[in-house]
């Protein structure tokens, strides 16, 4: 009965505007929030190996380098200046093996007979975000190795064909053991290695740092020079600074690493702007709703006064209002979540997949909690407003 009196003139333009505004604002807010979370959770396979935002930098090889005037080494001063850059959070020079390395197949493991000279490098373990056991000690069964993906490409599509060899799949290569031939410091030894992953980002052959420390001490020729490649981790959205640094130090960075950084930066900026805009829409629609309830209250001014005069309490009147607003805004909140999910699953995700970006689907929990928080914010803002207005009517 109270509802009947207080919401007599409910269906008006203001109500439709307030509802539509709140629905659009909340949907946009949730959608941008969800997309930001999705983009943050986005990993290429590469990044699963090396953690997000990390790139390998090296100095460009020029003619001067070739004739020995220029050097591609990073001096300790270079490294120090990298560490001082605000957008770089971690710097790790590559360590190199100080001995000769060769690999060949282990007989019976399915690989054709081959032998190749190689080299080993390592980066600190904190950069390796890899499923398999990357720790190595003297008791380990094998030395884990990460190969550049191009390496297997060259073998399969170049070398194998021209030599009449069978092609090797990544799985086969990872299943097979390799014989590692080590020669240095006047000693020779053989060990077992196994490929545990492939990398697009690092065109180097990586082994665990612990192995390299151990073997350099045993077989090293003490000819170690300054590192020529450095692994750095940058902050999110620091594509611009990275590009500046490249110019400044005449650096060479793998194209794909930059592209990922670039795409992520651009997406983050675009969604960020969208997010701020939707936050504003959201706040505006909050004001719109407060305005709407203010309008209903002033239209029902006579009714409120009279109800208070015949003994209805402020709480009863406020509760009637809040119940109605909660219902309305509850429907808006649920609709916003549903629309957000529909857009995400039916439009955005297929589009991203079509463009080669695979999204695992980050949790919807944060978006839903945000929707619930918005609901609470709306209702409490209106509660405070309605209570104040009803009290004023009673005292008028």
């Amino acid at each position, binding site marked *: *009965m*109270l509802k*009947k*009196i207080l919401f*007599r003139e409910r269906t008006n333009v203001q109500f439709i505007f307030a509802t539509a505004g709140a629905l659009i604002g909340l949907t946009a807010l949730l959608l941008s929030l969800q997309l930001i979370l999705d983009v943050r959770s986005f990993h290429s396979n590469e990044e699963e190996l090396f953690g997000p935002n990390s790139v390998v930098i090296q100095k460009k090889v020029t003619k001067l380098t070739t004739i020995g005037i220029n050097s591609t080494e990073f001096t300790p001063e270079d490294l120090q200046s990298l560490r001082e850059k605000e957008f770089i959070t971690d710097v790790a020079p590559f360590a190199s093996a100080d001995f000769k390395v060769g690999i060949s197949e282990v007989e019976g493991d399915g690989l054709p007979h081959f032998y190749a000279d190689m080299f080993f490098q390592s980066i600190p373990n904190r950069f390796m975000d890899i499923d398999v056991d990357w720790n190595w000690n003297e008791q380990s069964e094998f030395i884990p190795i990460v190969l550049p993906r191009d390496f297997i490409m060259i073998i399969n599509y170049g070398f194998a064909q021209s030599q009449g060899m069978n092609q090797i799949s990544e799985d086969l290569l990872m299943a097979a053991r390799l014989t590692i031939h080590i020669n240095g410091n006047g000693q020779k030894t053989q060990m077992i290695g196994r490929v545990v992953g492939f990398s697009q980002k690092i065109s180097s052959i990586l082994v665990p740092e612990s192995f390299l420390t151990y073997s350099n001490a045993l077989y090293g020729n003490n000819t170690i020079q300054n590192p020529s490649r450095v692994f750095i981790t940058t902050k999110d959205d620091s594509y611009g600074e990275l590009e500046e640094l490249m110019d400044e130090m005449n650096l060479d960075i793998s194209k794909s690493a930059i592209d990922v950084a670039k795409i992520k930066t651009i997406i983050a900026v675009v969604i960020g702007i969208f997010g701020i805009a939707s936050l504003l829409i959201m706040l505006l629609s909050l004001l719109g709703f407060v305005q709407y309830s203010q309008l209903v209250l002033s239209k029902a001014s006579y*009714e409120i006064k*009279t109800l*208070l*005069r*015949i*003994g*209805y*309490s*402020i709480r009863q009147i406020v509760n009637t209002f809040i119940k109605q607003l909660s219902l309305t805004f509850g429907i808006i909140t649920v609709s916003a979540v549903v629309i957000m999910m529909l857009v995400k699953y039916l439009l955005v995700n297929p589009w991203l997949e079509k463009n080669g970006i695979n999204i695992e689907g980050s949790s919807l929990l944060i978006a839903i909690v945000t929707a619930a928080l918005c609901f609470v914010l709306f209702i409490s803002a209106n509660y405070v407003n309605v209570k104040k207005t009803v*009290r004023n009517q*009673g*005292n008028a």
Partner: protein
Amino acid sequence: MYLEFKDVMPSPLRDYPHDEASVWKAGFKLEFPKKVILNASSGKGKSTFVSTVYGLRRDYIGSVELDGKPIEALTLDEWIELRRLQLSAVFQDLQLFPELSVWDNLCLKNELTQHKEEQEIEAFLEKLGIGDKKNQLCKNLSLGQQQRVAIIRSLLQPFELLLLDEPFSHLDEENAKIALELINQETDANGGGYILTSLGSYHGFEYDSELKL
């Protein structure tokens, strides 16, 4: 319940020459249950008196006390409590909900107080001759009919003091008499009293006390 006026002077009536015996000059103290008439010509402040006692206006100097407590100190919540349990009123402008039916207007009050059974309310309507208007919207009734609805509504709660501001102004003698009879009956049942303001007609009513304006 005690009602006492101590040097009360509403600001709109400040410059008006008042009789020495008037409420505004002499003040008064009444103990209810009691049936009181407040008889005065138009413009002397009858409605001002009712609104003041009912806590709807504060534009006066002096002090009004209910049971020894100055009403100026009551909070809105205390007033609402008072209006539900001790104080009832028929306003001159009735204050009904025009968009609700007669029945809804009455139920709105009774749902709050749970004071009467549905049959009793129906009997009240029959007694005052508007039983057939039960489902009509209040705005479609004549003033006299609306007045009777307001009277019935004021009786759907417990009260110690019922304020009646010219409740029969649109009723003929016969209907006024019946309404007064109902008011008396319910006032006695509640063990309460009332103050009835009137423009000079007494409706053959026997009162215990008289106030002058």
